[in-house]
């Protein structure tokens, strides 16, 4: 018996988790661009120069040195606008997704753990909420509250909390049936303490995965609202407004549309992949 028990314990070597590191690298690039935008952007994102309108990217004929990704119809530098656009995209996604996550997850945890009337109230609220068409709801909300980043963040949080509430409620219900919840009770834990210190750590990987997904969704929603001009003013550089603007000139100045679109695509993809990667990484059983 003794030799079985004292046998040295080895942790299995973990292979490099690409689902974790690839998205992290891209998000780090975008985050660095956002943080240090004034230092790395080659031009003022708002500076117009009608003499330099619709210049192609640096690798094509007719390009101007310094405008790496070309210019748009008002002669504004595409790369600089994309870098400043990252600021708005990340700011909105961080604040909106975190707010959505905290609000929705709390309701989901309460509904799933306590059951009974708290569950009935929260679940019915989710049902009613989900019956609204989300885009219409967002447009309506922004129309009422006025355009601006605050309205965009509020719209995202008010629409998408149901996603967290539903998923986390289901996950909490599964965990609440586990024996370790009963053993916490046997060990004298209060109900609220059991929820926070026993169940929450087991639901946290799902919450983080959803949070990452939500950050991606927030980037998209911000871009959509910018696209339809319901975000901040169209002068301000956002990926969505760049795409909207590039749409008009796609046949002769495709770069105005394509580069922000690729950035948006990669960022959203990175966030949702990162969610899965983190979930795997923090799962002690699979680690």
């Amino acid at each position, binding site marked *: 018996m003794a030799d079985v028990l004292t046998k040295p314990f080895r942790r299995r070597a973990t292979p490099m988790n690409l689902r974790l590191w690839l998205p992290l690298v891209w998000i780090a690039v975008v985050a660095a661009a956002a943080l240090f935008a004034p230092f790395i952007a080659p031009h003022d994102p708002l500076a117009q120069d009608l003499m330099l309108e619709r210049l192609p990217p640096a690798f094509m004929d007719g390009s101007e040195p310094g405008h790496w990704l070309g210019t748009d119809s008002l002669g504004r530098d595409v790369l600089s606008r994309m870098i400043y656009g990252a600021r708005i995209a990340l700011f909105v996604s961080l604040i909106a997704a975190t707010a959505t996550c905290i609000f929705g997850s709390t309701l989901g945890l309460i509904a799933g753990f306590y059951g009974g009337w708290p569950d009935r109230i929260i679940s019915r609220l989710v049902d009613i909420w989900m019956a609204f068409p989300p885009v219409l709801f967002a447009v309506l909300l922004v129309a009422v509250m006025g355009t601006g980043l605050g309205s965009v963040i509020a719209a995202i949080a008010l629409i998408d909390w149901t996603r967290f509430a539903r998923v986390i409620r289901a996950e909490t219900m599964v965990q609440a049936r586990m024996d370790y919840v009963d053993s*916490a009770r046997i*060990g004298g*834990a209060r109900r609220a303490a059991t929820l926070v210190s026993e169940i929450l750590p087991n639901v946290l990987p799902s919450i983080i995965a959803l949070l990452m997904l939500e950050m991606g969704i927030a980037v998209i929603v911000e871009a959509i609202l910018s696209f339809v001009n319901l975000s901040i003013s169209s002068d301000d550089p956002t990926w969505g407004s760049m795409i909207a603007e590039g749409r008009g000139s796609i046949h002769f100045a495709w770069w105005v549309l394509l580069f922000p679109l690729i950035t948006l695509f990669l960022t959203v993809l990175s966030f949702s992949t990162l969610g899965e990667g983190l979930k795997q990484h923090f799962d002690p059983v699979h680690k």
Partner: protein
Amino acid sequence: MTHPIQPAISDVPALFSIRNLHLSFPDRAHKPLLGPAPRIEVLKGISLDIPKGQITGIVGESGSGKSTFGRILVRLLDPDSGQVLFDGQDIGSLNETELRPLRRDLQMIFQDPMSSLNPRHKVSRIITQPMKRYGRGGTRADAIAALGKVGLPPEFAERYPHELSGGQRQRVGIARAIALEPRFILADEIVSGLDVSSQAQVLTLLGDLARDMGLTIAFISHDLSVIQYLCDNVVVLHHGVIVDQGPVQTVFDAPQSNITKSLLAAIPTPEIDEDWWAETESF
């Protein structure tokens, strides 16, 4: 008293005195469209004394209500009616707040050690958290001391449950229960998920600890051979009614009910069938 069975199963004073205990669950499968669901009676008036400082086996087929009965003893379930006297106090009607100070004395070891140990907590935290709640230490040294009592080395304190084997996990479950120095431990089918050699080790360990610490244990099992090995007394449940009870040897030697007889017959014995032996002899 609707059931005339004598509750006393030994001369030792009782830690638990259960009188006319009833429990039923709603049968949602047969719920009519309107009105309440019919109820399934799980425990039909159980009266029983659990003697102090002894190990009492509770045995029965699946569906006999033995686990349900055990969960009432540690008040994970509420009885419909009847008394559950723990050291003279009726704990059957207390609410959770009133129960909390008593829970230190009413510990439980679970059947499935994987799901009863929080997968996100280290072994040291699993053992010390209840100790901290009851102000009974809770340092790393306490965790290591508790691990030592169940024969696990100190470095296990820093491991997660999934890094342990089934037998080791069950030892952690035992360590958590005894760390509070309770007066009563419910052991619910604690070896049914383990392989035979781990079973023997865990049973021996529990028997030794019970003797050393003077614990009162209710040991639930469907396996009479395990009961015979470990317990002082045995209670046989069938469909929520006690059909046999008494000191292990008495019940095993002279079973009163057919249920006990059939459970006894199910014990695999190392005896050799005489006909088969005679046949082999003739060759």
